[in-house]
């Protein structure tokens, strides 16, 4: 039997959740509503005049081939960031979960990069990979004979921002995978080992299925991270270039709205972005969650 506690007064629970509701309404729903309204308007930044234009902003947006390209860029980028950082996070967590001598120290060191802000992470990688002053870039061009130039080539720029964005997210994923791994009963793995299952088999048959809740949670978090928080990386490293090859949706919202002061288009883009992330999350819950095993 699950123990349930109930409130005697009918008002008290509502009163207790009131602060959270107020915060959510003020800081989430109200701005979102404002954005939605603004997306149907054309208005000057100073708010002197604005007029209702229906779906004009949306139509303009979807007639722009570059906007559609930007959606594709965003999807490519976020899938790349999520898979790279989760794969490496899981790999490192599995390694660190073994009996090591300095476990605590190793784990702490591995968590560190998460404390680095995305913008800083971007700058760090820029210093390594910039074609004219990046030490790694000089090495690549000199010894590998490759023509590495993220200032000029879209593909190289994409690789650079993906590395910079994934790098700091690996730590985040590491923490959750680590916690997930530690929650797996040792007895299961030991029993499998006695039955002669190879380490690889043990991982796929036992560890991985039991990690699916973590995996699912992280996939949602990583997609959201790569959609929004990677702004700092893009802003410091490529500013969406070259030739718009790293212009992800959230950066375009910033450029059109904050820098370019086209509030209508920028709001329409925010609404599209919001819908896209809602859609992705719903899809994840509907199709991926079915495969998740919540209890061992």
């Amino acid at each position, binding site marked *: 039997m699950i123990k349930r506690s109930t409130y005697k007064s009918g008002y008290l629970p509502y009163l207790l959740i009131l602060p959270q509701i107020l915060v959510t309404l003020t800081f989430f729903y109200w701005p979102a509503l404002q954005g939605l309204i603004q997306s149907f308007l*054309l208005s000057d*930044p100073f*708010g*002197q*005049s604005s007029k209702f234009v229906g779906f004009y902003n949306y139509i303009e947006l979807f007639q722009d081939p570059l906007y559609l390209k930007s959606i594709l860029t965003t999807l490519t980028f976020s899938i790349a960031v999520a898979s790279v950082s989760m794969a490496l996070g899981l790999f490192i967590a599995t390694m660190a979960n073994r009996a090591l001598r300095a476990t605590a120290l190793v784990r702490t060191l591995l968590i560190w990069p998460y404390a680095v802000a995305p913008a800083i992470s971007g700058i760090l990688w820029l210093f390594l990979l910039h074609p*004219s002053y990046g030490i790694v870039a000089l090495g690549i061009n000199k010894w590998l004979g490759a023509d590495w130039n993220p200032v000029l080539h879209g593909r190289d720029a994409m690789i650079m921002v993906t590395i910079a964005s994934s790098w700091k997210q690996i730590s985040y994923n590491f923490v959750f995978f680590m916690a997930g791994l530690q929650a797996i009963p040792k007895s299961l793995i030991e029993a499998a080992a006695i039955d002669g299952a190879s380490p690889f088999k043990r991982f796929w048959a036992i560890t991985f299925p039991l990690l699916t809740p973590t995996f699912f949670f992280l996939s949602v978090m990583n997609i959201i991270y790569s959609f929004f928080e990677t702004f700092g990386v893009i802003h410091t490293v490529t500013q969406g*270039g*070259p*030739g*718009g090859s790293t212009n992800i949706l959230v950066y375009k919202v910033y450029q059109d709205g904050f820098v370019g002061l086209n509030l209508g288009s920028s709001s329409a883009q925010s609404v599209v972005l919001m819908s896209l992330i809602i859609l992705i999350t719903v899809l994840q819950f509907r199709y991926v969650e079915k495969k998740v095993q919540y209890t061992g």
Partner: protein
Amino acid sequence: MKLSRLFVVFAVGICLALPAAVCAEPVTINWWHAMRSARGKVVDEMIKQFNQSQSEYVVVGTNKGNYDEVLNAGVAAFRAKKQPHILQVFEVGTQTMMMSGSIYPVHKLMAETGHKIDWSNYLQAVLSYYMDADGNLMSMPFNSSTPIMYYNVSMFEKAGIKPLSKTDPITWDELGEITKKLVDDGISPAGMVTAWQSWIQIENYSAIHNVPFASKANGYEGLDCELMINNPLVTSHIERLKTWAKDKRFMYGGQKYQGPKSEFIAQNAAVYMDSVSGIAKLKKANLEFKWDAAPLPVEASMKSPQNSIIGGASLWVLNGHSKKEYEGVAAFLSFLATNEMQSYWHKETGYFPITLNAYNDLKAKGYYKENPLQTVGIDQLNRAVPTKISRGLRLGYFVQIRNIINEELELVWNGKKSPKEALDNAVARSNIQLRTFEKTYKK
């Protein structure tokens, strides 16, 4: 008791009898600007001197971040009815400010507060950027610069190329020969780099050759203007740069100035085009090679090149303040235009003095003899009377348009598009922006 009441009556009496100024606090004038670090200190010093020079007004300068952030802060403050008196806005925001309906035009402010200003005494190429179609000044120019060409003298000497003139521009063909020699002889890995490609290679290139950047006199005469940068001259210029990129006479170093500058400093490129503000940056870098500056190259067909155009920012006076406060704003703006302030500003920051008086004063004092680099930009700016085409650009959503141009040019440099395709596309995409802007402001 009686005595103190008498004293109060007496004090009130004095306050009523004398002009308000004696009892009242000085009037505060707020100025939001984007000047930080070294420039910020110069701005603070100018404000301090103004505040010490009189007691009626106190100017409070606040740095609100970079240009984008300052403009956004101004917009947000205006919507909350807490706007500053003076807002510094970058040149690409000029059209947005002019159309905003939230500004007090500077020519009107000066006339209505009784300041008689001889506008002909100002540098016309600077002033014209901020004028309306009828030649009225809308905002006060503050920090203005223009692009020039820096070159590595040591490399030139090695290749046996004579130093360039500081007043007479070389032709693009000559630059092609120079960079070819430098690259072919193995003296420099690449020929030229350019900062701010849209501003220097298209906007200034068009102005210097007197070809319109946009219709309707570059947008001065109507919101229904269209971009015209896919004309034969600009197209062939971009084609030339593309050809040069193939044999390393041109190298792409990024949209802003940091990348190109580091290529020049690392001696990966012998020629570097950037704003005059580069003078201070290169001096600070303590380069191990000799360098100098020259005007931007022109086409051989252009016998008398036009003035280049400016970049930078100007000071906008915002609506919604009292007459008394506007008198203070006008006093402060005229104070900034004095010779002392202008020469101080010019010497410390490298931005141009905005009046001819200040320029001549500095010249008479021998400043330009000691600092010949500073004349390159000014001479290039003043070498001709600005035409309707070379006076500046007045485009809505100019920030987005520059982004579009940057994007399309990058697609030329990395080989995804031909120059013609890219420029056609840039025009088409920019025109959509211009139409949206027009639609927003059309009554």
